């Protein structure tokens, strides 16, 4: 519990710093987010909107009012573009992002551990070399490029997956099972693309860890008991690699979220990444601030969860 309290306090301070820096960066950037882009709209219109959104106040007053509203009622203000509460926009797009990021996490672990296992069973074989080379390659390739190629080849070319969106048109007419299948059909390709880059890292670590385990006393004992290679690696070997793999999940959380912005753009996935990107392009300050905060909360929560899980898996962490 001590560890949890310390981590929570540190997370709260970090969150406040992130909010303040983001507010400063976004509001001090040159230009007027409410300046009309249509020449037919007179400049007075921007003045009226500025007054409506409180932007005619001094910056410190804006900051305190904004922070107060966030702290007291989780009110992030109204989007300049849509007029809707920024928190609502983010809350709507959060579930698709969590679904995509969670599925990508699953994909990266299933792929990474699977390939690591294959490579570890025959170290220095052609298969092992292939896995190592492939893991380096997918790590090096940018997500947007892999995504575009996946859409062109698997989506447009072969028709194996929808090319964009989270559901088919008018999916609200589908029954529950069909809806699930429809979402999964739209999900697998972006999740795979997003998960690929980190899967290489996990494959390399799993391979190394499992090869190490086989030469330990525990590994030799398991073999002496007559257990199959598969069982030795899957059950005992992975237990050995577990704490580090959990840590890698925490490390990959921010990468997954930033990667989601790219993947969501390529696959028109209606998540936080798409919302944030559009808000940045339109200089929609309340939405950018809320998106940064939600992103920060997600990353901090993932790190915290990983820390606590790690402490459970390896009690020595608490002692440190």
């Amino acid at each position: 519990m001590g560890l949890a309290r310390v981590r929570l306090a540190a997370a709260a301070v970090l969150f406040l710093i992130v909010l303040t820096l983001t507010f400063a960066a976004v509001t001090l950037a040159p230009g007027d987010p409410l300046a009309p882009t249509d020449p037919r709209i007179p400049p007075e219109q921007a003045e009226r909107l500025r007054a409506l959104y409180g932007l005619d106040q001094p910056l410190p007053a804006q900051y305190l009012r904004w922070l107060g509203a966030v702290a007291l009622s989780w009110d992030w203000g109204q989007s300049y573009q849509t007029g809707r509460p920024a928190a609502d926009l983010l809350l709507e797009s959060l579930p698709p992002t969590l679904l995509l990021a969670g599925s990508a996490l699953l994909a990266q672990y299933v792929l990474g551990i699977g390939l690591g296992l294959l490579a570890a069973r025959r170290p220095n074989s052609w298969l092992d070399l292939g896995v190592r080379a492939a893991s380096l390659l997918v790590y090096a390739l940018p997500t947007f490029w892999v995504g575009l190629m996946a859409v062109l080849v698997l989506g447009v070319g072969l028709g194996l997956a929808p090319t964009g969106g989270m559901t088919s048109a008018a999916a609200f007419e589908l029954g529950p099972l069909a809806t699930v299948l429809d979402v999964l059909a739209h999900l697998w390709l972006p999740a795979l693309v997003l998960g690929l880059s980190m899967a290489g890292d996990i494959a390399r670590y799993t391979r190394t860890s499992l090869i190490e385990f086989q030469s330990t006393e525990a590994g030799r004992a398991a073999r002496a008991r007559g257990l199959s290679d598969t069982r030795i690696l899957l059950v005992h070997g992975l237990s050995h690699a577990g704490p580090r793999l959990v840590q890698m999940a925490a490390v990959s959380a921010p990468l997954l979220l930033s990667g989601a912005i790219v993947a969501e753009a390529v696959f028109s996935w209606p998540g936080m990444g798409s919302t944030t990107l559009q808000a940045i392009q339109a200089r929609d300050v309340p939405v950018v601030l809320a998106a940064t905060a939600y992103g920060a909360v997600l990353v901090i929560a993932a790190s915290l969860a990983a820390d606590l899980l790690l402490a459970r898996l390896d009690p020595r962490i608490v002692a440190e």
Partner: protein
Amino acid sequence: MYDDSVLSLRRLAVAGLAAVVGWGCSSETPRDTTQVRVGLRFDYPTPNELIAPPTLAYAAINNQLFLSLMEEQGDFRAGPPAWAASLAEGWEFSDDRLQLTVRLSPDAKWSDGRPVTAEDVRFTWLAQTDASIAWSYAQYKGAIVDVEVIDSHTARFHFNADLPTALADVSTGTILPRHAWEPRPFGEWRSDPGWFFEHLVTNGPFRLESRTAGRELVLGRNPNHLEPELPRLERVILRAVPDSTALTNQLLAGELDFAYGITAADANRIDGRPGLRLTAYSNRQYTFVVWNTRKQWFEDAATRRALALAIDRQAIVDTIWHGYAEVGSSPIISGVWAHDPELEPWPHDPAAARTALAEAGWIDNDGDGILERGGVPFRFELATYIGASARWDAVQMIQADLSAVGVDAQPRRVDANALNSRLQEQDFDAAASGFAIDTSLDFRPLFHSEEVGGLNWAAYANPELDRLIDSFANRPDPLAGRDDLHRLQRILHDDQPILVLWESMSLAAFDEELESVAPNALSPLVNLKEWAWRESGWRPPPSSS
């Protein structure tokens, strides 16, 4: 036992994957000829246009749900835009043209069956001009001093001046439902845009069937629409696709039937593809380089003309637009009635540009390859917007062209809001930007000397041009001002406060079995109510006229 369970898991996983991938591949279903799937980049946060983002895509959708009193027609070649009956079946001006009496169609109804009345017309005007609502286009109502309800189907607009734009002013904005929206005070409209979804009745050809925020809108046929035989489709599914490449991919994969916002770079992926038709149409937009005439490099017209001669605009257009744009000669673009057809774009003539620059005093005295005048090198920043890829490409090509005549243009990308602020404050050297021409042809905001600090970014001042702009604005009959506008274009052509680079086109693509699709500059969905599938064998109902 252990290996058996692993095997079972594998089988389960493979079966699951097959089901998911199989579902994803199952797009080869028979076409539903009662509906169409439309992809475009849009945001539809509220059905109340007075508090919505002032974008073309928003208006394109909203105009399917709500109608104006009169409908602007899309052909601007022959003369000023004509106005067709919409909710109003007729209208007439008083002799002094200070009053416009509008008769509403008795068939005009809201989707809940209640009639559209003159009270709705007055309520709409009150909302449009309310300061707390702060509608983006409220200035179009500036000359309307009152809207009088004569009877339930007759309203009278009172103007404070005889303006040629009176019909446009009256028709800007759609008519709102007083009985549904009046309960909410104007001061609270902006605080909850979603409220209007919960109290939505429409008077257009469609009503809103369902909505998934940020992703999809489903429009259904409005049975109370005043043209009972329309729309021909039962349902239109609008999909929000924010990325243009994704839009093209979805169209090619058969996930969309119509896509608007195709880029010229993607057009060749669609053009010639069996089953798809690509259409290009003028969007009334033009892109230009604005020279800040308060800077020493651009203070004289002779230098600005020389720069026009140095830039190969045809090469820029060919490279960037692949045939979907043309070199421009005037801010009154070539598809508009007032365009001067005798005005030719300045040719690309580097030799003539060098001579003209030398005559204007620009000489390379120190032999560094850059011209100077009065000790000042011809070196300036040429800015454009971050994310505007076509303009960025153009800026780099302009840099190369100008370099060939001894002018050092230094390209720079700037955030859109920041650059717009700098343009208004004349805190720039030169910039590539763009406008859409307004059919009122009011050039006061862009070139009148009193608008420096506003949209007259060039800080251009010419007394004759000011007089022409004022004179045209006060003519009751715009057609009679054609000569004024030709003269205006000639002055701008000679003085070159801006160099028009190109007149661009919008690109849309659709399934070739879809008929009556005719996007135009007003809207990509301008006649959506007339769209139908060829194979549906649609015929007007016997009762229709």
